[in-house]
């Protein structure tokens, strides 16, 4: 297990912002695993989101540009109005193809491509949301060997997104907010809590 997880991908929509903040606040500046946040957001509001996440984070939060390499020490936020994919070469790639589940960025797309490219070296986490986007993507990453975590629907502000995921498969863990924070911190030394 040691050193296994090379990327953490987190998907969330309505009700996920505070959990994401809590996660970022808990992580030290030398956290060694890159984190990718695919969060539903307004298409035409480009500014403010990264800035507000940076206020809660010791790690640098940035929106990747096309072909940027995935690097430790960063938290990457999916840019507004683009889908965010991860290539087998471990570079980001963007796409403007149609909305998936009414969403661009679509969490399905990010989970699916990261799962294909990182296989069992990915940890995928799905949080609160009032939309089913992300469920099939996380399932697909699970098929490709990713370690999967779903926020406990009874703990999520909006339970549809975690609920839809649990309809598809049994994830490795179902955790409440605090459990998710502890789980991510534990990946640093790769002892899953």
């Amino acid at each position: 297990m040691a050193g296994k997880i090379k990327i953490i991908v987190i998907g969330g929509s309505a009700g996920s912002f505070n959990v994401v903040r809590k996660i970022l606040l808990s992580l030290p500046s030398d956290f060694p695993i890159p984190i990718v946040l695919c969060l539903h957001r307004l298409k035409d509001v480009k500014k403010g989101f990264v800035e507000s996440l940076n206020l809660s984070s010791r790690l640098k939060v940035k929106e990747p540009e096309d072909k940027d390499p995935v690097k430790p020490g960063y938290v990457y936020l999916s840019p507004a109005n683009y889908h965010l994919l991860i290539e087998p070469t471990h570079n980001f790639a963007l796409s403007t193809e149609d909305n998936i589940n009414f969403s661009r960025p679509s969490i399905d797309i990010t989970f699916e491509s990261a799962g294909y490219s990182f296989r069992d070296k990915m940890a995928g986490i799905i949080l609160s949301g009032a939309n089913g986007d992300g469920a099939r993507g996380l399932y697909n990453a699970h098929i490709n060997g990713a370690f999967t975590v779903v926020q406990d629907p009874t703990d999520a502000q909006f339970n549809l997104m975690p609920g839809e995921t649990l309809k598809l498969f049994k994830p490795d863990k179902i955790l409440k907010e605090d459990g998710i924070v502890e789980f991510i911190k534990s990946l640093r030394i790769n002892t899953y809590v």
Partner: protein
Amino acid sequence: MFRSQNSAMEDIGIKDIKKVIETVYEVRGIDFSNYAFSSFRRRIKRFMELNKVRDFNDFIRNIRESEEYVDNLIKEITVNVTEMFRDPTFWTFLNNNIIPKIKFENKLRIWHAACSTGEEVYSMAILLKEAGLLKSASIVATDINNNVLNVARKGSYPIRNQELNSKNYELFGGRRSLADYYMQTGTRVQFDKELIGNVDFLCHDLALDNPIGTFDLIICRNVLIYFNFELQEKVVQTFVQSMAPNSYLGIGSKESLSWCKAARALEEVSYEEKVYKKSASGERP
């Protein structure tokens, strides 16, 4: 998403993708080998899902045997959703900071590279019209796919897209109402033909074909994201070769030229809006 009945299909891999690329090249001479992998793989999966492909060998056979099937496949791979005045601040920047600086001689020469269904061509035409420059412009709009060029030539779009287009137009700072530029018939709108009076729509493959002229402004937004490094380099080189002294290039807001050798001939005018300039000498100052 992937409601595939066949779990093997969920996992179309590198070898399968290579086979598709080879076969399409064999039958059509279109080379997708330098397209960005993840998006390309997604498009193939999506096509297989829409066409309920159960067996990979059948899929390859269909590509070999049916012209219509390949047409549809190429369309699925290359057609991208676009909107008018996508990223309104880009168009505002173009209008306020770039267009007034272009000192054109005879005509203001513009190339829309990979224009898809033409939404940005109409955006540009509207911008130029409101700046009093439409009649001075000579625009070439190209795409690899003739079907989408026909949509662009026709200028007929679904009414349901106009809400977003209108909102973008307003955010851009349009002087009128977008509806002033089209007529509604049923569920579609027909844009004013006058807008494309000076536009030539041409079939052109950025991956294979040579430069098509010299321009004062090249617009190629959210196209490079579908190419790998190698093809991006080649395409940017084509652009640089096609740029007149003191001309500009505009790319997508999250695209980057920072790694690209050919882009060393260009100067960044705006990081935010991703506009680049080729100086008078063609050398970076």
